[in-house]
């Protein structure tokens, strides 16, 4: 029964890790850079949602959509203000730029919303489903459904729309895509906007589950990163499964092994995957010809 409860609690968390991981993965594949501000996009999305719901009295469902749109704009601005000026500089400059942007976003949030944690009522208020001895907040079920819808829409976008195909082409080989007439620079702006929107939505969904503080994004980013590595860098399906896997693994290790060494064990697994299967559990091996 405990295992079922752990699974029920961890699955929605895994969905959030997956959403963050997918955004992380999209940016890495397209821009070739690790976006250290991804967790701050989630945090910022959460804070925007707090303002929308608590101050402007916007319903949570509408807030999810509005926050996604607002964070897409933030992602676009981030691309124009941080990525584009640094993209031709040495890679280290880009990394430092993204870390700096992450710190700035955190401090802007601190200035705007203050240091205290925030909490929102979830979808369906505080209603809790009870299946035998297993309890599951209705909001957690909504998180699983919303995440599923978003991921389905994302796959449709990537595989069946022109923009999505341009994004995939850029991710595969930016130079070839450019010679084929794809506006690679604009696609990169769009990728960061999409990634920020995904993180922002994850942030909104997170607030009723975890409560929101300046710190909340860090652990989720780390887990999102672990999801990307375990699932397979370059493989979106792998990242989604990686997110679920990490969320559930986290809970089971804390319960059955030790709550003190959860992160150590999860990242030991990440290192093992990097050693034994660098392409991730679902990624395809790529041979380089020299």
């Amino acid at each position, binding site marked *: 029964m405990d295992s079922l409860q752990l699974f029920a609690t961890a699955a929605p968390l895994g969905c959030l890790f997956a959403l963050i991981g997918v955004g992380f993965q999209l940016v890495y594949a397209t821009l070739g850079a690790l976006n250290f501000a991804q967790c701050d996009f989630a945090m910022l999305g959460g804070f925007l949602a707090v303002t929308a719901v608590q101050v402007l009295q916007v319903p949570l469902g509408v807030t999810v959509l509005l926050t996604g749109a607002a964070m897409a704009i933030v992602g676009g601005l981030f691309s124009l203000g941080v990525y584009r000026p640094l993209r031709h500089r040495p890679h280290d400059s880009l990394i430092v730029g993204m870390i700096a942007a992450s710190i700035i976003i955190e401090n802007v949030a601190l200035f705007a919303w203050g*240091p*205290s944690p925030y909490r929102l009522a979830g979808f369906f208020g505080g209603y809790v489903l009870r299946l035998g001895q297993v*309890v599951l907040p209705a909001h957690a079920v909504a998180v699983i459904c919303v995440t599923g819808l978003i991921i389905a829409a994302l796959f449709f976008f990537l595989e069946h729309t022109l923009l999505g195909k341009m994004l995939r082409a850029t991710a595969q080989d930016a130079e070839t895509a450019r010679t084929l007439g794809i506006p690679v620079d604009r696609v990169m702006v769009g990728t960061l906007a999409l990634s920020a929107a995904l993180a922002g939505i994850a942030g909104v969904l997170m607030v009723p589950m975890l*409560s929101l503080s300046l*710190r909340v994004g860090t*652990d989720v980013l780390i887990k999102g990163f672990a999801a990307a590595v375990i699932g397979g860098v370059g493989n979106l399906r792998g990242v989604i499964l990686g997110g679920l896997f990490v969320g559930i693994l986290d809970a089971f290790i804390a319960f059955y092994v030790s709550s003190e060494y959860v992160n150590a064990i999860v990242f030991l697994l990440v290192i093992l995957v990097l050693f034994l299967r660098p392409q991730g559990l679902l990624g395809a091996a790529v041979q380089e010809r020299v």
Partner: protein
Amino acid sequence: MFHRAAGRAFVALLIAVCAAAFNPLGGTFRSAPLAQAAPQSQPYIIGMVDTVTGPVAALGTSTRNGATMAVEEINKAGGVDGHQLKLVFEDSGGTNETAITAATRLMDEKPRVILGLSLSTQAFAAMPAITGKRAPVIVFGTNPKLTESGGEYAFSALPNVSALCPAAVSYALQDLHKSKVAILTTDDEFGVAANQMLVDTVKKLGAAVVSTQTLSTKAVDATPQLLKIKASGADVAISWLLENLDPLVFQQRHQLGLVIPWLSSAMLPKTVQQIASADIDGVYAMYGTNILADNTPAVRDFVTRFKARFGVPADEYGGGAFDIIHIIALGLKSATTPQQMRDYLAGLKNFQGVDGIYTATANRNLAQRAVVTRYDKDRNKVTVKTIQF
């Protein structure tokens, strides 16, 4: 015209300096009168380093507010023997590294006394940069080993875990008549110190610790730990967590139907506001004082002034910092060297502040008191027991 005027001024200054240097009465350059006059207008510098931008910035913001308010009021009333107080504040940020940098920078200001460091983890890291007989340091971190690590110049300002944890255990066992205790703490210095103190006290009082759980300070899920507590058969639980984790733990505890009596470490009012009423109803929490429920006129007045000045309710941390500045101001009347200030703090007795009475112990803890409170369904905390050590 300008050059001629400047030249005359230079010659006049040279003559004045030579006259002073060859004064037949003294025979040497006498700068003493000038040096004596200068300190009259020089402020006494009080250094403060605390976290106002890190993940638990709410704590540092509160202590900074309390200290700022005390300095402003003392200066408005004329300062200390004609000297204004100057609070030099450095933000220790969110990591130990930023805390060390902030503390090192603060020392350049040559403060008379240093206070702050609400996070024990940061306090341990920064202590070597600020201790060593240069100025006494009064920390808000509640790990009891901080005063040891800082040496004889280090003092603890707030009731620390050596006061609050035994009080929590004692209340759980002797007042609530429970015998099987579960403990949940964070994995940082704050939580580790509390964990050890709680376990030791439970054993000392002859009861059993049936479950000991830790949470990462960045945890996003407490379900495994709460399920383990539930499965352990505990009849009471004590949690010692950072502010960011309290809403998560109380929400999940309620959802999982963990209905045993629950005692918690202190929480800031803003944190409590973010916890649903149903999640916190009936939770006990340990404080050094219950400042919002204190009807003493001086405390009520402080609470009103604090709210008017900062727009947020007063809390025990802000009250503690306010008191410490007043304690320092009193010491500055007589102590002119770091040694004298240290001796004054070490000998402090029965200073009545808004947070309660301050008396230095042999371990250099200035505040040894505890208040057990219980949250009602409106999230108000009601004092159920006061313990003065």
